[in-house]
């Protein structure tokens, strides 16, 4: 029952035929019935609009992601469109050419979705598990650090530098993630470090 309607009037203007809708009480009930018959075979399509942050650079523009289907309702969702978020104070609905191409980035067949390894002597990438990838990265980093770490300079002053490895971290991270990343990387002695990823 619609909240706006109440039954408490005894005014003289009240019509004889009382219908529950404006259309019915105005005498357009046939038109209302025609619409009802017309739409009966149709289903409702579910779409969603989701706020997010562009992952490309540290400007962190607001984006709206349009998709067909709603994951919260147990459906699969397909991204149909991505545009700048007009309410976001940083970009006010605008996007740079890279941001404007985000949908193609999401759907790209070449998009990296899991760790891949190209071993020495081959030109093919093969899929790896996260455990394999992280173990391998940790092993190689440890070996490199053990071989090339500079604890003291030629004057004997402690410098704790590791100059043979660089570290590139993501841009659209939270302050906390950026802080933790910085602490880990600098504690290991890595000098070449960019936590902004100007891709």
């Amino acid at each position, binding site marked *: 029952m619609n909240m706006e309607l109440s039954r408490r*009037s005894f005014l003289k203007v009240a019509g004889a035929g009382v219908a529950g809708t404006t259309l019915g009480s105005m005498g357009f009930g046939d*038109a209302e019935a025609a619409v009802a018959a017309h739409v009966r075979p149709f289903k409702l399509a579910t779409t969603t609009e989701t706020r997010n942050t562009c992952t490309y650079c540290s400007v962190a523009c607001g984006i*709206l992601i349009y998709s067909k289907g709603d994951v919260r309702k147990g459906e699969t969702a397909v991204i149909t469109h991505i545009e700048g978020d007009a309410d976001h104070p940083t970009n006010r609905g605008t996007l740079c050419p890279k941001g404007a191409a985000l949908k193609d980035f999401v759907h790209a067949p070449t998009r990296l979705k899991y760790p891949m390894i190209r071993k020495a002597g081959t030109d093919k990438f093969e899929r790896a598990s996260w455990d394999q990838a992280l173990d391998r990265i940790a092993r190689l980093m440890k070996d490199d650090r053990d071989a090339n770490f500079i604890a003291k300079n030629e004057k004997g002053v402690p410098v704790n530098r590791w100059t043979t490895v660089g570290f590139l971290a993501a841009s659209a991270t939270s302050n906390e993630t950026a802080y933790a990343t910085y602490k880990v990387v600098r504690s290991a002695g890595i000098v070449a470090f960019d936590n902004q990823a100007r891709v």
Partner: protein
Amino acid sequence: MSDTHTIQPDPSAIGGVPKAPFALLPDASRLFARRAERFDGLAPGSDLAAYLHFLAEISRAQSDIANDLPPAEPILAEVTERSRTGQMPPIDRSSVSGGQVRATLRALFEKADAIEKPEQAATALAALRQADDATLDTLIRDALSDAIPVETLAANLFVSAGLQVHMARWAGGADATRLVPVSVGVCPVCGGKPIASMVVGVMGAEGARYCVCSCCATQWNEVRVKCVTCGSTKGVGYRSVAEDDRDATVKAEVCDECGSYVKILYANKNPSLDPVADDVASLGLDLLMRDTEYRRAALNPYLLGY
């Protein structure tokens, strides 16, 4: 030489993307004429053609009287400032009464008399034309308090149409730069409920969403992907009639938190959309939504009871 050293740096102006204005005030002289055109455009081929033609004539009658009436009452600067301080709308809906509003309504009733309409509508209008001041005041009060007795739905259509003219002309005199948000789903000029919200494509507000007041037609900015009834940003989704693969320009914005929906019109995709006309013309969506768990929360005097 110009005095360049006094110019203060303003990094926020880089790129020159303007902030969308908070409120867009109605211009009664164009509003109803444009709406009539939209009704005319929607009618051919529609199941609702008879009703849409009728509402086109009502909108034309609104447009005619809006241009003929004496100037609307001004909103005093001190009232605007007081409302701003108290975060209240400058127009007090409970104070809408008196000779001027009744004169506006009666002018509309006279114009509406010439419009072709079904018998029930004609009966309701005939009764309204003979109604005394007290009866009219009761109907005005019911319409403005959003509590319309089910027996007066037909009368309410004509009364609300007259009130729309009165309120749009009045709200048009507000100072848009001195308005403040009152509350979610409340018009910052007259305190009315939204009829729908529109994503606009107008210059300076591309992609911004505006709620449209069902009473005075003021448009006010609300953040996208947010329920305009309860203000929640959780559980907001969209439903549309799945006619083909094209993305619909009229959708129901549903909210899982309060279980209601208000239509959202994508005027950035189709600039001819009119919140009142397209709300009526998309009745099919409301009929399909009746089978869902969501309740219609928008108020449109031409489309009550869903």
